[in-house]
């Protein structure tokens, strides 16, 4: 909502300055979004007439115009507008003036070799409208003021307010003035309301059809006959241009003026173009009309339309149609002032994707009792400016307005806001805002003003009171430092721990969108369902991610393009399995590219590989507190991993779901996305699959129990089938005697000479130690034999001789 202090002063008597105004507007909840200084050199923009145009010698599209700006000499101005023709009256900006839109200061300048003194302006350049196609075309009426300032001499700045959706009453200057007056910023001027004095009936028949979901409940109108539509007088043009509106014709300007002044949208029809009478009804599917924005609209069932016997004239409360629009030659007009229901307006406007000043107001709720005030004010103005004869007001209604009553206990104020104001003060504020009140036993009965659809209950009254008294009066009560419940629960702690554990292994944490490019998502979707976003922001972000890899790999690639080679990034966040709330998992996903120790003078460089990410996963899980001896790993992984170089990890062999995948990313994917790297490995850890321990750290520490007897380390080399897992061999050794055998290490894996084909040799070192005694040679020999025998039985592996 754009306002000026000058316009406010039509309704508000105050001695205070604009600086105080800006503060006070914000204090009462009418946030000042910006202040535009239009006045500084507004007077410099002059009405001018193009006397002569010649083509620019060096540019086909430019013209050299000789312009009369009310001085003896004509000014030479280079102009590119197609409509810059001889005889046109337009607006001239001299050197030294600042163009409002671009904020550039003009200077005398050579344009393609021709000196141009100033410029001719379009509406958009002067912030009058978005019209940037050509320069302003003024009517012949402006002939009289060539050389005079186009804008009035208003010193008032344009103040842009952000009006919250609950305050339709402040979409009119008077509503804003009322709030300011209630807060002590001046006094609201009480007008003697002028009323139409007429003995002529409104003869055009108006009917609101009683239908289900009828969007219009009241339709007020009057006829004004024998008018002469004209240009608006300067004061009215100034009013509208002062808030950035473009004057059109007196009748349209007056309806707009009343809308901005009183928040009372009106519509003027050319009465001669209405066939027989007005019918307010629901539209039928397929009906069409051309609206005043020159667009054709095809309607669905149930939209509230104003029609005549021929068809749709306009969408009630949203936009009129061209068929019945007023023109400069309009003789008789029907002025409409109606009440349309917010929900109906909103639904229709949304379906047709239409936004107008009227729609914006009706969908928030217009004062249903302002119908006659609006008609009176506008009709009398039209008569003043355009002449004619006004009929009596005709009001059709299918519902009567019910006054809202709210019970209010004054004690609620202190209970909610924490400070006290006197009952006297309370009623002064409410009275100024337009409330009426009656005292009952323990409470007051408040009558809510008809322009406040937002006020329905007691707490709304509290807000009015605290808003007007000032939020600065609210005390600051310091919080008590007391904690009754732990801040994080177990799974939040796990999230937190994993997040920092992965980072501590050299990964940079990334945060990427929860949505992704479906093309990339498909690479990592495996068997999961694709979840489409109905209205994505772009086709590259059209689905919810099934895996974090899609985004990580996109950004990894971007970083590789930046010339980085050895990158480790990770993200912890949601992946989605369905479109219902809760169908999501929390995953830590990491990706590593390139080499380790690239170009190091001391370390041998090598590609990152699956055992790097395996280390990161296993180490992290151990750090979280899981026992690595119980981990079980197999090679069943989703299709986006290298089938031979990836694994999945379970916390225990028998129990639960996989807690992690790790491995090389499938070479086909790397090829398809054209990624240039020596190696790409990744992992995923699934938080929901990690069993949360109920034990505290203290419980997790078992009794300290170690053996001080001599320990021996024995090496074995087993020859096994090539596809036998090392894990099975280790488990077989460990199964021998948990009390004696510990710490099995694989120190060599060998295939080739001296080993039969399809077999391999795995060399392990086993630590043997007793809790009871130092083992002698014969004890050790027994255990050795037992290990060899057990391994043979369990895995078929033979000791290498």
């Amino acid at each position, binding site marked *: 909502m754009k306002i000026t202090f000058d316009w406010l002063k039509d309704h508000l008597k105050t001695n205070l300055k604009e600086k105080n105004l800006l503060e006070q507007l914000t*204090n009462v909840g009418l*946030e000042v979004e910006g202040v535009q200084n239009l006045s500084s050199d507004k007077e410099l923009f002059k009405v001018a007439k193009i006397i002569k145009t010649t083509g620019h010698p060096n540019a086909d599209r430019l013209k050299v115009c000789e312009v009369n700006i009310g001085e003896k000499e004509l000014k030479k101005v280079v102009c590119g507008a197609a409509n810059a023709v001889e005889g046109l009256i337009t607006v001239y900006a001299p050197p030294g003036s600042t163009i409002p839109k671009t904020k550039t200061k003009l200077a005398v300048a050579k344009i393609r070799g021709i000196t141009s003194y100033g410029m001719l302006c379009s509406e958009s350049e002067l912030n009058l409208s978005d019209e940037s196609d050509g320069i302003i075309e003024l009517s012949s009426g402006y002939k009289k003021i060539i050389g005079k300032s186009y804008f009035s001499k208003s010193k008032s700045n344009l103040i842009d307010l952000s009006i*919250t*959706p*609950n*305050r339709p009453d402040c979409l009119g200057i008077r509503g804003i003035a009322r709030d300011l007056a209630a807060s002590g910023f001046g006094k609201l001027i009480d007008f003697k309301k002028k009323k139409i004095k007429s003995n002529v009936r409104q003869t055009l028949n108006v009917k609101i059809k009683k239908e289900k979901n009828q969007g219009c409940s009241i339709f007020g109108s009057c006829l004004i006959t024998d008018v002469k539509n004209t240009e608006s007088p300067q004061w009215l043009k100034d009013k509208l241009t002062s808030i950035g509106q473009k004057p059109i014709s007196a009748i349209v300007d007056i309806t707009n003026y009343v809308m901005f002044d009183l928040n009372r949208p009106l519509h003027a029809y050319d009465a001669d173009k209405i066939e027989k009478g007005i019918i307010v009804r629901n539209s039928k599917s397929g009906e069409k009309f051309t609206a005043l924005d020159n667009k054709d609209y095809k309607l669905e069932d149930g939209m509230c339309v104003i029609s005549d016997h021929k068809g749709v004239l306009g969408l009630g409360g949203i936009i009129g149609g061209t068929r019945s629009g007023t023109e400069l030659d309009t003789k008789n007009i029907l002025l409409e002032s109606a009440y349309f229901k*917010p929900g109906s307006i909103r639904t229709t406007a949304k379906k047709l994707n239409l936004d107008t000043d009227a729609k914006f107001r009706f969908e*928030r709720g217009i004062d249903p009792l302002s119908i006659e005030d609006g008609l009176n004010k506008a009709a009398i103005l039209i008569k003043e400016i355009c002449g004619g004869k006004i009929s009596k007001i005709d009001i059709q209604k299918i519902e009567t307005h019910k006054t809202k009553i709210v019970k209010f206990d004054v004690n609620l104020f202190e*209970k*909610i806001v*924490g*400070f006290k104001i006197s009952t006297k003060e309370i009623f002064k504020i409410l009275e100024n805002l337009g409330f009426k009140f009656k005292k009952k036993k323990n409470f007051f009965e408040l009558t809510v003003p008809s322009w406040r659809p937002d006020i329905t209950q007691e*707490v*709304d009254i509290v807000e009015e009171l605290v*808003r007007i008294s000032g*939020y*600065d009066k*609210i005390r*600051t*009560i*310091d919080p008590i430092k007391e*904690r*009754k*419940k732990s*801040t994080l*629960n177990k799974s939040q702690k796990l999230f*937190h721990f994993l*997040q*920092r554990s992965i*980072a*501590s*292994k*050299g990964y*940079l*944490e*990334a*945060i*990427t*969108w*929860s*949505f992704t490019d479906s093309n990339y998502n498909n690479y990592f979707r495996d068997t999961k369902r694709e979840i489409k*976003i*109905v*209205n*994505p*922001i772009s086709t590259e972000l059209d689905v*919810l991610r099934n895996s974090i890899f899609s*985004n990580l790999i996109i*950004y990894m690639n971007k*970083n590789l393009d*930046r010339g980085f080679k050895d990158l*480790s*990034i990770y993200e912890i*966040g949601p992946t*989605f399995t369905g*479109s219902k*709330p809760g169908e999501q998992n929390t995953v830590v996903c990491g990706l590593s590219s390139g080499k380790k120790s690239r170009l*190091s003078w*001391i*370390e041998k460089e090598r590609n990152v590989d699956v055992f790097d990410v395996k280390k990161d996963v296993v180490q992290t899980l151990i750090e979280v507190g899981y026992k690595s001896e119980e981990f079980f790993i197999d090679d069943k992984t989703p299709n986006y991993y290298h089938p031979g170089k990836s694994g999945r990890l379970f916390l225990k062999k028998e129990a639960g779901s996989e807690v992690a995948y790790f491995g090389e990313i499938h070479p086909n994917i790397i090829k398809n996305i054209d990624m240039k790297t020596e190696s790409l490995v990744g992992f995923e850890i699934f938080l929901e699959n990690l069993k949360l321990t109920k034990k505290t750290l203290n419980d997790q520490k078992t009794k300290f129990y170690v053996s001080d007897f001599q320990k021996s380390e024995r090496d074995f080399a087993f020859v096994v089938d090539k596809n036998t897992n090392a894990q099975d061999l280790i488990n077989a050794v460990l199964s021998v005697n948990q009390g004696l055998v510990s710490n099995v290490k694989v120190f060599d894996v060998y295939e080739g000479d001296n080993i039969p084909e399809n077999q391999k040799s795995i060399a392990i070192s086993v630590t043997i130690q007793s809790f009871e005694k130092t083992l002698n040679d014969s004890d050790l020999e027994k255990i050795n034999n037992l290990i060899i025998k057990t391994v043979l039985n369990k895995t078929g592996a033979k000791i290498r001789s």
Partner: protein
Amino acid sequence: MSDLKKIKNELLFKLKSKLNLSEVNQIKSDLFGKNGLISSQFKKIGTIAETERKKFASELNVIKDELQDLINLKIKEIENEEIREKLQKEKIDITLPERPFVRGKIHPVSQTIDEISSIFSEIGFSVEEGPDVESEYNNFTALNTPEDHPARDMHDTFYLDEKKERLLRTHTSPVQIRTMLKDKPPFKIIAPGRTYRSDSDQTHAPMFHQVEGLHIDKDINMGHLKGCLNYFIKEFFELDKIKMRFRPSHFPFTEPSAEVDIGYEMKDGKIVIGEGDQWLEILGCGMVHPNVLRNVKVDPIKFQGYAFGIGIDRLAMLKYGINDLRAFFDCDYRWLNHFGFDPLDVPTNYRGLSR
């Protein structure tokens, strides 16, 4: 006697020259070996007249000890020299680079979430969460924002079905609903998380982060709200004093509602929080609307309290001088390295937010 003196002098003479270990050992065995000079002197003891014998033997022992000490000393000297030479040879260029290491970092948004949690933990808030995909009911209707409410226009919503029943939450406020439906009052929670709006330009990203706050009890009023936020802002920016302004606003789910501005000024092109006469909007808040409480079966006559919503990314930008919101999600390796935090920098109550 002269024999012994002679032996000693000879030895002293020999030891003066530069010798290696085997040469010294040779000298040693020349003296003390089976037929060594000293050993043969000992053999002579028997042949010496009884009157002289005792004296001779005693003098011989003294000389023997003396000579042994001299030789041992020489051996020690040679060994020390050898070690010295060895270490000298081993000397390396210690300015060569250390073995390569990589350093991981925590994203500034994650760090900021931990900072926020740590501050609110101190005054008794616990952390709640909710899903990213929400029902239209939880995201809007339950929060007193029915279908035809114009406030819905302020939330450009991503939908997951044509009926618009499932959506990506536009704010963290649905966690209020979930929390209050799940438990009984009092409630004292914060809920940080991802939020989504179909809006994208320099200052808007289609995904961003919010933290919701909710405190419901029997007597929680706007003074408590002001105190809580004042405390939070001071702690978060690690300042003793802060300029804060509450001004009336409107959110369908709070009544009265407020927006909170903090004072700032520009110094050398950088925002300095807490001073100056410029205002910066940082959060929205208010007293939870009785309709919301009724929707979650909490009696608004018995219980009341406040809620707030803060943009986490924006807070992080202000605190750490980050200019571009989009960069948070752009994953530029250089940016992550520059603005990221060491994983050991865990914000906690006892050690504070900063090192």
